């Protein structure tokens, strides 16, 4: 589904990503782990074409999309739920959802919105309120609902648990599992390594923009380096 090789990106003179490769198979949850500043968000931004001057090749659904603009990539079904949700605070909940469908050529029907509201009852009650008044958890749900409206083939989530209570975090992860069970491929960036490894089939660990470990999540859960550095176990 997604195959990226030799990704490189920099903020000015600072290399943020250096030769990272990554694969996400159809129907799979893949996770990217690492500390703050390891390049996780930059990796997602590079995949979506948001990093000017980025190097490497991105193949998506059999097509080389490395040279395409971000909106072109979104239109092909590569959709990001950005870090910090980034809901449009001045637009209503419903308008935010409709913005998710912006790159689509067809107009989303009421049934489709209702399906989202059915999943997120909090959003249904607040559909005509400005998204800026929602709580952090509701904004996260809105950001995910908005991404769903784009009809993604691969949904990329950047730190979906950031700033959420443990209860809301588990709600978000239950949602990710449900979406995956419905056939959605998912690429997850997460600081909470244990949660991410339990939710995924494949994972990649970044340190200072380089890949240090990659493999199946089951193997990584047993990997001494991962356990020592990210899971808080004695190495």
């Amino acid at each position, binding site marked *: 589904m997604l195959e990226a090789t030799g990704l490189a990106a920099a903020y000015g003179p600072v290399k943020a990503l250096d030769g990272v490769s990554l694969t996400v198979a159809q129907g799979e949850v893949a996770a990217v782990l690492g500390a703050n500043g390891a390049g996780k968000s930059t990796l997602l931004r590079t995949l*979506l074409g*948001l990093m000017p001057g980025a190097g490497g090749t991105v193949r998506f659904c059999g097509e080389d999309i490395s040279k395409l*603009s*971000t*909106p072109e990539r*979104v*239109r092909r079904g590569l*959709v*990001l739920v*950005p870090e910090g949700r*980034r809901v*449009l*605070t*001045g*637009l209503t909940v419903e*308008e935010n959802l*409709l*913005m*998710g469908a*912006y*790159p689509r050529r067809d*107009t989303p029907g009421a049934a489709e919105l209702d399906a989202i509201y059915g999943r997120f009852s909090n959003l249904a009650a607040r559909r005509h309120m*400005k998204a800026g008044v929602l709580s952090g958890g509701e904004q996260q749900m809105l950001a995910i609902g*908005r991404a769903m409206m*784009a009809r993604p083939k691969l949904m990329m989530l950047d730190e979906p648990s950031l700033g959420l209570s443990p209860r809301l975090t588990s709600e978000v992860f239950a949602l990710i599992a449900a979406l995956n069970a419905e056939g959605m491929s998912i690429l997850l960036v997460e600081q909470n390594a244990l949660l991410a490894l339990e939710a995924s089939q494949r994972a990649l660990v970044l340190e200072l923009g380089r890949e240090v470990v990659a493999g199946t999540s089951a193997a990584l859960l047993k990997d001494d380096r991962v356990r020592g550095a990210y899971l808080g176990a004695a190495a």
Partner: protein
Amino acid sequence: MVAQQLVNGLMLGAIYMMVAVSFTLFFGCLNFLNFSVPALFMLGGFLTWAFVQMGMPWVVAVLGALAVAAVASLIVERLTWRIQRGGPPLIPLVSSLGFLILFENLVLVRWGSDARSIPSPFGDANIRIGEVVLGVPQLACLVVAIGLVFGLQFLLARSKLGRGIRSVAESPETATILGVEVNKVVPRLFLLAGLFCALAGVMFSLSYQLVSPFMGDQVALKGLAAMVLGGMGSVWGAVIGGLVIGLIEIFAISALSADHVSVVVYGLLLAVLIVRPTGLFGDAGLGQQKL
């Protein structure tokens, strides 16, 4: 007498309102004070005269003038906005000022600096309601202007393009992440806002039957004042600001004299800004949905 002035004020205010809406669209969505607006206003009004002068029928002349103004607005988008985005924010402003001077002087070179009188396509038609005389062109302009503002509101609030514009206004990067092609939405905004002030220019020339290469300067200054009065970035603020300034101007002319108009208008603007520095309706821009 008062009723007549009320009507005249609203009619003049409708033109300021259109110009103020144009300014506020640029400012609210792009944080861009577009100084080419007076030139687009002038192109609308002046070229209508020029094309009629060349023997074109009225409708063709108006459409031709609007088309030229639309192209001019797109040129400003390409050369001041797009290629200079991301640089110091004052550069597009100064560059748009350059286009104001360029467009005005291109017209000056071709047609000279004299003010020209433009015949009215409506003749001397007017309607009397009691003591109040309504000029047909002015009345038509007022109705069209108000209709267009409501149309614009509807477009911004309900259409896909409107949501796209508002998302770009709030955050170009978030809009991009959602799949909005900012470089397609922004030219449409320039087209829309440019046509608004060009149409105001057409209305001005039809209502007051006088055009000159610099006809945009005075009107746009009032339009700018109207935007600031209403609150920068707020469409309804621009509407109220435009109408209020039109009314004040007409009442100031009759109560004092034409020489005192500027003192009253800008004095009032200053007074309002001292009390409410963000203007009457200005707490937030278009991005924060002050619609």
